[in-house]
């Protein structure tokens, strides 16, 4: 049994009206526990709809979504499903619930009915993980967009879910902020075994994941390991490769064999080796 399973799932907005938009069409894939997965594709390719289907915020109109073997369409499973799959959305302004940052982060664990000491530990851990611990007694509305997003991520971390879905959650952060979040996320994945699904436009981020699912027009166009970045169809879909991959591809084609690399550092090493 896979951790998250999509079996022939379809979802349309405004279904049955003239404005019907088929956002997800007959999508099947599975995600195993502990995987770091990138879900990539253009705006409007259905990525965010998939995120919402992952913990029952949207229910499939046909097909089946299962988390830990539990059907998201069965209401009595929802509490357990949402405890195990947390989502961080695009816009942090829609995710703040409290007037003080540490209260905001504590909101999730409080609702799980944990004892105060455990809540304190989780809030401190979560805020330190995103580098916002020193702001814990401030008000969220006074933070910049990027800082708010880090608080939203901390709010999900404090629930200690088995899986975290980040729906373009780094898109408002500066490069250093993006890197910090990627570091937090990869650490949680490697050290705590947390399953992470990154929905992203940044192919550099996808290059750090174990598995890549490429969406196009509501369907899965490609999926596989990191080597998917070297699949020519990716470029045909109009997606921009990370520059390290595209430079490596061009060098390989010119006969200078640098192999398949995924980061600028790997590229530099490979170039030096092949000279």
């Amino acid at each position, binding site marked *: 049994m896979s951790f998250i399973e999509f079996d022939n799932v379809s979802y349309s907005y405004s279904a049955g009206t003239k404005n019907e938009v088929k956002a997800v069409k007959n999508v099947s894939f599975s995600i195993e526990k502990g995987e770091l997965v990138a879900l990539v594709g253009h705006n409007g390719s259905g990525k965010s709809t998939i995120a919402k289907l992952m913990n029952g915020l949207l229910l499939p109109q046909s097909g089946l979504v299962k988390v830990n073997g539990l059907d998201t369409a069965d209401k009595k499973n929802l509490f357990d499903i949402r405890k195990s799959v947390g989502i961080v959305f695009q816009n942090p302004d829609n995710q703040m619930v409290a007037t003080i940052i540490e209260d905001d982060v504590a909101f999730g664990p409080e609702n799980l009915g944990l004892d105060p000491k455990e809540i304190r530990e989780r809030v401190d851990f979560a805020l330190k993980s995103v580098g916002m611990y020193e702001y814990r007694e401030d008000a969220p509305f006074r933070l910049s967009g990027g800082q708010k997003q880090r608080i939203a991520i901390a709010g999900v971390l404090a629930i200690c879910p088995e899986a975290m879905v980040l729906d373009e959650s780094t898109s408002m952060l500066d*490069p250093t902020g993006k890197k910090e979040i990627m570091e937090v996320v990869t650490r949680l994945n490697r050290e705590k075994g947390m399953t992470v699904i990154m929905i992203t436009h940044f192919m550099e981020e996808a290059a750090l994941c174990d598995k890549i699912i490429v969406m196009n027009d509501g369907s899965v166009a490609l999926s596989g390991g990191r080597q998917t970045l070297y699949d020519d169809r990716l470029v045909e879909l109009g997606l921009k490769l990370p520059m390290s991959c595209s430079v490596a591809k061009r*060098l390989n084609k*010119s006969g200078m064999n640098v192999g398949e690399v995924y980061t600028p550092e790997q590229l530099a090493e490979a170039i030096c080796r092949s000279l």
Partner: protein
Amino acid sequence: MSIVVKDLTYIYSPGTPFERKALDGVTFTIEDGDFFGIVGRTGSGKSTLISHFNGLIKLMNGSLIVEGIDLSEKYDYKKLRSQVGMVFQYPEYQLFDETVEKDVGFGPKNLGLSAAEIAERAKNAIELVGLDYREIKDRSPFELSGGQMRRVALAGVLAMKPKTLILDEPTAGLDPKGKEEIMQLLLRIKRECPTIVMISHNMDEVSSYCNRIAVLGGGKLKGVFSPKELFDKEELVAEAGLSLPMPAYISKLLVERGLNVSASSEDELVQSILSIWGAKNA
């Protein structure tokens, strides 16, 4: 001179436990015709700074002259806002009207223009952002794709015919193709609205489009640079929470490994690597 900033200081919630200095003695000038970039880490004061430019934040300390209007005195804020167009982050969240045409015409309507003139301005602005006026004018802005919505929001600001356009991360959240389209669009807009000021975290964008770049850090101005000057200051780039444009970064990694590579584009990078390889194998 489009915008003259002198000794600008701003403190949020002064005199309370939440007091925080957002801007600290910032002085610089944005010239007419600049494509001016503002960079810095989240929380460095960028948004506070640009909110001053059309009077959304009242001057606390220092002086500010925008398009000849002195904001340290009593001024006509309607006039200011018709000259300085402000496009916020994710401007599509500000769309509200029933149709695209009405939404875009909302600003001109508030200027008290005639119906014919409002329609004319809406049409021009919608065409300026590259949308098909006849096809889109009667549609609801909420039925459009994200990229189209952002263009409509931009048209709403352009319909005011500003002389200076200020944008807070205009390409945030768009896919690479959408980002490129918006940047190309800004170049076209610049022919009619000559001064553009843009906050960005995207080093590739700033380096390819802006002629001058102000770096903010902790509310202080670290300097105003040309793209080339800025990238030579590696420490400053890192401090501003930015990364070098990718070709420059890969070049730097190769230089550290003893290769003589200096590239500002992917093509240059590939060519210089191949020529080193070719020379070794000759």
